[in-house]
């Protein structure tokens, strides 16, 4: 399963990078979203996908059956942080549209006389 996941994660990263290299601001943000999904899945996969029970103490479940709880805690933190950054970035993009009237990254440059 881990090998399949690794390939899927590679695909996610590839799509994310391809989107981030595009001209449109919103595609770049979509790219960062895909990138964080890829990173989260990578964390989970690297922790090992074994374990037959969720990491919640329950009767009749031995310690070795739990899925690894540490990557899950790390991912939870990462999800919240990436959400905060994505929303900030989105509002920034929204304000940039409002003020500058464009979302084309090719046009969002310093002026020529700015040395």
């Amino acid at each position, binding site marked *: 399963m881990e*090998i*399949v996941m*690794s390939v*899927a*994660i590679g*695909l*996610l990263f*590839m*799509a994310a*990078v*391809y989107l981030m*290299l*595009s*001209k*449109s601001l*919103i*595609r770049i*943000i*979509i790219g960062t*979203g*895909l990138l964080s*999904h890829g990173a989260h*899945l990578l964390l*989970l*996969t*690297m922790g*090992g996908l*074994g374990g*037959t*029970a*969720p*990491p*919640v*103490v*329950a009767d009749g479940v031995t*310690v070795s059956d*739990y*899925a690894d*709880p*540490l990557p*899950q805690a790390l991912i*939870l*933190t990462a*999800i*919240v942080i990436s959400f*905060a*950054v*994505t*929303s900030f970035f*989105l*509002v920034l993009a929204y*304000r940039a*549209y*409002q003020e500058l*009237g*464009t*979302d084309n*990254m090719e046009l*969002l440059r310093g002026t020529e006389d*700015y040395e």
Partner: protein
Amino acid sequence: MSLVFLIFIPILAALFIPLLFKRLGQIHTGWFVLLVPAALFLYYATRLPSVMEGGTYVSELSWIPSLDIAFIAYLDGLSLLFTLLITGIGALVVLYSIFYLDKHREQLHNFYVYLLIFMSAMLGVVQSDHLITLYLFWELTSISSFLLIAYWYTRDRSRFGALKSMMITVFGGLMMLGGFVLLSIMGGTYSIRELIAQAPELAQHDFFIWALVLVLLGAFTKSAQFPFYIWLPDAMEAPTPVSAYLHSATMVKAGIYLVARLTPVFALSEVWMWLVAGVGLFTMVWASFFALKQKDLKGILAFSTVSQLGLIMSLLGVAAAAYHVEGAADTYLKYAAFAAIFHLINHATFKGSLFMIAGIIDHETGTRDIRKLGGLMSLMPVSFTVALIGSLSMAGLPPFNGFLSKEMFLTAMLSLQEFNMFSMDVWWVLFPIIAWIGSVFTFIYSLYFVFHTFAGKHQPEQLPKQAHEAPIGMLISPVFLAALVVMIFFIPNLIGDWLVKPAVAAIQPFLYDSPQNVDIHVSAWHGFNTELFMTLGIFAIGGLMFWTLRKWQHLYDLYPDSISLNRLYDEMMLLSDGGANRFSRIYMTGFIRSYLVYMFSFMSFIVLLTLFLNEAFQIDFNNLAPIGVYEIVILLALVGATLTILGSKSRLTAIIALGAVGYSVALLFVIFRAPDLALTQLVIETISVALFLLAFYHLPQISRKEERMKFRFGNALVALGVGVTMTLVALSAHSQKAMPSISEFYKETVYKEAGGGNIVNVILVDYRGFDTLFEIAVLGIAGIGIITMIRLRLTKKEGQHENK
């Protein structure tokens, strides 16, 4: 009193100069300054008798003991000679400047502060026994010289000259620092005396030749040797007292000092010998040749200084050759070091006086252009006498001291025939011949300087001012120096015993162990020998060429400016400036895409390279979780949604597909037994998609041109690289687990220690609660940031760019 402390006296005195200038402005500030070098000169002079006997003084002040860095003042024959030059000429120059600089119009406090800093720096250079502090003082001379050259900072030429001298001397200084560091690595000490003691071992070291070349670069740039002399003529924009002091008598001799001081360390190497002698001699001829091209009085003197420094440098090279000859103390080779030091003193006297005369002429006639001057002999008789004495001494005529040193220079060059290594038995002839040619040109420009200024026809209509003799105060210093020029001719052996021999013993400790053993007697008449005939030849040919100077001087104009070294320097500066600019423009495109491409491609390149160079890639098929049907279905949905984003025409599709990816990830979390993650992911994905739609809705009309993303091969390649890198790294990392997880501890103790059942939640708020605290902070900051962006609006001001 401690010798180290004395070095800092001028700098300490400089602290009071602005106060004296502001409070006691009616008295020329120079009078107070004059006390400093005069008192120091008298103090150092009291050390002469003991140094004459071969005595030395050492005094140490610890600076950074843990790094073994200290100020060490070491006074032997060589450093005492330079110290006396610095303080003695310093006193005369300050006296001269009192009458040269007007106390009402000039910013005297700046001038004297810079000058005193320079004096301290110079004393530090010649007295330091520690390489690092020597370098410190060395750079301080560069900086104070920079400040002094640009003293009239409102003139363009001054600033240009200051920058040029700074660039070149600091370049050399940094090279020299490299040489010093290598020396200290080789010898294990920073002390020059200890390095001299282990010179034979140092010569075997691999770094030796590097240290040698780097130190020589420092010495050559400071002492204006070919091809680094170009800063000196441009430094003539400084006030004349500065030119007289820094650019003839002291700073430009710092390189000479360094070469002389380190001769015992490097003399073993023939590379040192050839470089010093060869570059020195070439500089001498080159500069004496081009001195005749100059139209500016100070320009002539600048080239003449370069030429004379080359002469001294070449003599030091020959002095190093004495190391390679058995019984050199009995041959004529011994004259080289003596001649170098002797000429150094002579040059300081006559060149100092000539600069002061040039300053007087500038001051009293308003111009330094030699074409406008002429016939000043009767108007300025005292200046003429001094200039004549200085020039004839420079030309090498008796009865002036220049004659004696010129004779010894020729003797030393002829003595190279005794040096029969490296097939010198054939090539030695070149040295005296080149020296002779240089001397002929020296003879001509010396006469050119004095006679084209003072003889000939007076042209009052060409001069900005009515020419008249300078005030007495301005004449004291040049007259005194001119008197020395004559006096040294008559008492050369006294000077030799007092000043030259101790210095020679310091340069050639391998020949003499005390100054008394230096067995050299100078006499003005030394019989009919080769040197005398060469001198007569110089007078004859030089006289003839000077007589016909007007006929052939215009030949100099044929020399194209386009291949001069100055042009080379200017082009180099332009190229480095423009080139760096062009280079930045090539890769700093301003497009975020370019920067991302650089980053992504370099990251994947480096990671892949490391992976395969270390043979770290491998796949382990054990310990894998089984592949389930649900997982495959969800993954297919995820990949499908991702591809939809890539291929979507409208942004709406892309956003919805991104939502689909997020929900598939949430489902994967469910499948892989992570309920908290699945919950959070679902909620957050919903909010994110809502936010995306919000931004989408507010797109302005003009940009709402729906189009499919154009396929770009370069982007695809970079993206593919990153994806492959991630997959390979993930596979390799998973296949090579070095140690078991620490999660066993959490699983076992979660209920016992923390009293909770949900292990993930307990990790978040108990075991690793700090992460959570700052994650909350991140969320808070993002919220505040969003509010700020939406609420705070600065009103636009048209046309008020900060950068305009």
